[in-house]
């Protein structure tokens, strides 16, 4: 059964040191800032974080990085105009970086969620990001063998959830959320609003409840400063 809570601490309880944490969002759109703040207070450290970017400004993922909790980032686009937290950590050699083309990042998480053992991707062939990887020519085209990226935990933001755990998203804030929800052992979603079971149209549910373990109801949450 999905836990629905207004307590950010309860939402992130039990995340262990050394976990691989998938964090949704493309820049700040879809980033689960309240869950990340709760994770900072919760204290888990030595984390591997998988997210498209490596933090923007000083909030959300950037704050988690600044708190020194992240051993390694797996992402496609760390360098941004406002990624100063990651930039310093990286230049000081205080964080590892695995750079993954964005399509491979999404597809590798999808594979983890879908039970695919590995797949041949056309992306990255002949580039430094494919170095050391197995390649195969299929139908005259070269491909690189890519393996799943599985999370212990996914922290995502959706728009509305129902009490069973079904989720819908809003505009381009959908981005990595639905994929990460499938790829983690425990998926935790912060939502702007929780509705009763039956209020979401079954045709429009984007993340079915089977993928969602805990929901943080932001409309009811007591978010500490």
């Amino acid at each position: 059964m999905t836990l629905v809570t207004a307590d950010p601490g309860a939402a992130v309880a039990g995340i262990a040191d050394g976990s691989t944490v998938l964090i949704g969002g493309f820049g700040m759109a879809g980033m689960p800032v309240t869950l990340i703040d709760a994770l900072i207070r919760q204290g888990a450290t030595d984390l591997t974080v998988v997210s498209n970017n490596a933090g923007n400004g000083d909030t959300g993922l950037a704050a988690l990085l600044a708190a020194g909790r992240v051993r390694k980032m797996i992402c496609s686009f760390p360098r941004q105009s406002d990624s100063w937290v990651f930039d310093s950590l990286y230049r000081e050699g205080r964080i590892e970086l695995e750079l993954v083309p964005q399509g491979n990042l999404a597809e590798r998480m999808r594979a983890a969620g879908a039970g695919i053992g590995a797949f041949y991707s056309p992306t990255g062939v002949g580039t430094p990001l494919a170095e050391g990887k197995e390649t195969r020519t299929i139908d005259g085209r070269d491909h690189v063998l890519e393996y799943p990226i599985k999370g212990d935990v996914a922290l995502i933001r959706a728009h509305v959830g129902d009490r069973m755990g079904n989720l819908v998203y809003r505009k381009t804030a959908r981005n990595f959320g639905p994929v990460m929800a499938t790829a983690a052992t425990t998926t935790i979603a912060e939502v702007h609003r929780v509705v009763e079971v039956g209020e979401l149209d079954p045709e429009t549910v984007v993340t079915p409840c089977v993928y969602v373990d805990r929901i943080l109801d932001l409309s009811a949450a007591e978010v500490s400063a």
Partner: protein
Amino acid sequence: MTVSLNPDTNPDVHPDARTVEHTGRGPLDRDELAALVARDIPPGSFVNLGIGQPTTVADHLPAGSGVILHTENGMLGMGPAAHGDEIDPDLTNAGKMPVTELPGASYFHHADSFAMMRGGHLDVCVLGAYQVSERGDLANWHTGAPDAIPAVGGAMDLAIGAKNVFVMMTLFARDGTPKLVPECTYPLTGLACVSRLYTDRAIFHLGPDGVTVAETYGTTVEELASRLDVTLRTLGGREDAG
């Protein structure tokens, strides 16, 4: 989300569990068998019920169990069979029978539906079988007869995808041949995938330790041992429930 199998019947979590012999009665009928399968599905589970007899398990799930049914043709939150005006040709189960929708349902396409199965997100699936081997190999899609038209559907995906694969079948074929066997002779559906075997004569747990008899109906472990060509273990002890 992970749910645990019923601890009362799960030797892994209940070391004092004993094999129960129900000798004062006959074999289970189909309805009783379906009820026993339903009993062992933990509340809140995500469950796929195969075509045919497994479909009837739904009728025995208690109200408020919170069990959510998946159908491979793209739905979570499937309700009971549709009747009369409820019948909608756009809403069917894996057996193509008209069904209904429960509150909290969702629809998705076939690749997403099988990603859900194959990615290990369903807690239990219940399937029929021609044969199950003592290692848990499953044969349920093809008799291997030369003139038979083979059809596999989602059986192979369910067999390897669900966290727990329950099989329902009669223990013996009409000619008395055991269907729990050392090695399947019918074409295989999946290897070492069956965790529980529900038959009219007994309920078996299958796993790395081999075949354990959990309960018998109208027979004893000894009698089963004499008719089956597989080694039978019992739970910690045995108890005659009469």
